[in-house]
């Protein structure tokens, strides 16, 4: 609505939800620096991410029927102005990201105290919120260039957050530097792709881009743009051959950061990939179908087997979980490549299920590192027996990682196998099950270290303080709960998948 409109009706709080989702953490981050008080920093961060979570839930309730919310920043109507557009998919991913942030913060309070030097605490919470802002913004916005801006906000703060692990292990610095270089290359590729799209269509609004690409068909520029965007986002999402930055970054970052990133950062990149593959370009184009069949399927199968295989031989638990994350991203990309509604909903539901599972596991490792000082298997001997609740949470999450029936992980793998059968790809269905067996091996190694070895004689480890323990137990419980009640997760994922497959037809103004 233009500002000059005489019949102007003032907006209510509910109308502003899409922008508040991003602006609340965005304002809280500089506020923390401006106030500069260590205790207040945590409180502000907590309030901001809890508010973001509530907003995401409110919006998901509004768009669950397949509709969408559009918000015009500055009152400028799209496609000229910047639009925030929330549909079932984005609301679902927003809920995951803000939910994980809210649950990680109480955990971070204790964990950060022991892992990060005191003078950096306020900066830590400010960066955490900036990272959250970036991830939420990438998902909420309906403007392609805005995606890039938020991608950079989240990436730059992530590099610093990873480097904050240097207090414990200076290798965090090289890990952060690696990530910086790879992440920057990814972002550059992405923005080159956007530049090509802008050149050929003259617009940056995602819905408008879709219309114009559909009108002009697949010319060289559009194909080049597609390639650049897929490679750029593939780098950020740690798609198999582009995953090199991930293991070190996850291993040496502070526990709270690993938990947050492991559950959200790659997921937001996969969201952007989905958005571009289905809402901007559409699967009818031959180049996209070939990319999915000839590149995504082989590489995701490779990821499922090779990364799991590497995970089996790790000697550091955090590193093992990092490799397992790469394998799990393989499942998500495989679901996308199936190009049917079931496969897409498997990918989308796996975003959330895997997010919860990995967050619970990384939290467990973080709690053990609090006592053992490192995540090497040798230092974790028998800790599951000394820390019964932490151990139990890790067992529940471990089972979900394998995909044992009755856990969240089972639901996503089950739907994925169903999707493979729908296409008649029974070899791939078997491959999914075989690769789960590799997960059994590495999760078993974790159980063996935690329970079947004798703890050190003088081991004084006990369960961590409640602020760390409760988030972990909530997540472990969620891993089981969402294995039985799939109404929220799988239900929303199906609506989201159908919305995506409807393509640009569902996005018209």
């Amino acid at each position: 609505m233009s500002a000059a409109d005489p019949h102007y009706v003032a907006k209510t709080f509910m109308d502003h939800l899409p922008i508040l989702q991003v602006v609340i953490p965005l304002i809280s981050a500089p506020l923390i620096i401006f106030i500069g008080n260590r205790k207040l920093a945590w409180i502000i961060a907590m309030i901001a991410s809890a508010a973001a979570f509530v907003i995401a839930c409110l919006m998901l309730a509004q768009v669950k029927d397949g509709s969408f919310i559009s918000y015009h920043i500055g009152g400028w109507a799209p496609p000229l102005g910047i639009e925030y557009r929330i549909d079932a998919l984005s609301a679902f991913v927003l809920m995951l990201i803000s939910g994980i942030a809210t649950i990680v913060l109480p955990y971070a309070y204790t964990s950060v105290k022991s892992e990060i030097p005191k003078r950096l605490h306020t900066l830590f919470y400010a960066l955490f919120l900036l990272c959250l802002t970036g991830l939420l913004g990438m998902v909420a916005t309906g403007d392609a260039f805005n995606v890039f801006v938020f991608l950079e906000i989240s990436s730059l703060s992530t590099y610093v957050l990873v480097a904050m692990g240097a207090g414990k292990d200076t290798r965090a610095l090289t890990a952060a530097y690696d990530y910086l270089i790879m992440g920057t290359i990814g972002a550059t590729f992405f923005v080159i792709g956007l530049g090509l799209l802008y050149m050929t269509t003259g617009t940056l609004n995602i819905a408008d881009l879709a219309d114009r690409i559909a009108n002009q068909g697949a010319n060289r520029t559009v194909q080049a743009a597609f390639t650049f965007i897929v490679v750029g986002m593939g780098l950020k999402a740690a798609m198999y051959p582009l995953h090199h930055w991930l293991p070190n970054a996850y291993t040496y970052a502070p526990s709270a950061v690993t938990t947050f990133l492991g559950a959200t950062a790659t997921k937001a990149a996969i969201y952007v990939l989905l958005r571009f593959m289905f809402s901007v370009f559409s699967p009818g184009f031959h180049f996209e179908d070939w990319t999915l069949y000839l590149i995504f399927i082989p590489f995701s199968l490779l990821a499922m087997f090779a990364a799991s295989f590497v995970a089996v031989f790790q000697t550091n638990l955090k590193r093992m979980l990092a490799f397992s994350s790469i394998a799990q991203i393989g499942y998500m990309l495989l679901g996308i490549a199936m190009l049917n509604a079931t496969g897409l909903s498997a990918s989308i539901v796996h975003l959330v299920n895997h997010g919860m599972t990995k967050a619970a596991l990384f939290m467990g490792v973080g709690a053990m590192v609090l006592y053992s000082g490192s995540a090497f298997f040798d230092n974790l001997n028998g800790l599951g027996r000394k820390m019964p609740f932490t151990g139990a949470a890790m067992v529940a999450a471990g089972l979900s990682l394998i995909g044992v029936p009755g856990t969240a992980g089972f639901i996503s793998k089950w739907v994925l196998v169903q999707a493979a059968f729908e296409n008649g790809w029974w070899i791939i269905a078997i491959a999914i099950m075989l690769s789960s067996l590799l997960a059994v091996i590495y999760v078993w190694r974790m159980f063996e270290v935690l329970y079947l070895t004798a703890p050190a004689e003088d081991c004084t480890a006990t369960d961590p303080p409640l602020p760390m323990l409760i988030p972990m137990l909530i997540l472990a419980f969620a891993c089981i709960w969402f294995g039985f009640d799939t109404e929220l997760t799988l239900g929303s994922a199906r609506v989201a998948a159908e919305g995506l497959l409807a393509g640009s037809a569902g996005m018209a103004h």
Partner: protein
Amino acid sequence: MHHHLILRVVTKMLVGAIILFAFYVQFHGDFSPGGGFQAGVIMAVAFILYGIVFGLNKAEQVFPSWLVHKLVALGVLIYAGTGVASMLLGYNYLDYGAFNPQHPSHGQHWGILAVELGVGVTVTGVMVAIYYAFANRPPPMKDEDW
């Protein structure tokens, strides 16, 4: 500190002019080339020049690093706060029409000024912070060893 006499005298004369020029670029941004980013860089140049000629300690006496960090945050708050203000007035985020509903173009004017001020403050802070961060590193060799 008695060498570089000419540099020191000229710097003292220039610093004021540079700051004045920064304000000019800042507040004429909507009429002529310029705006918050350019003004912020020019403003920072004044402090960086002072730091280069008179030494980092003197510069930090004038513009302590805690203040620099607060300014970085303050600028973002001004920018985002402008958006929130328009929101509280019942308009969309960053819809400057909110500041003068009868003449939206005047409202745009005020909105742009406020937002550009935020940009200027943050850019000044960031530029000086980067200079301090690099200049504060222990030198690989002493000045006398050259």
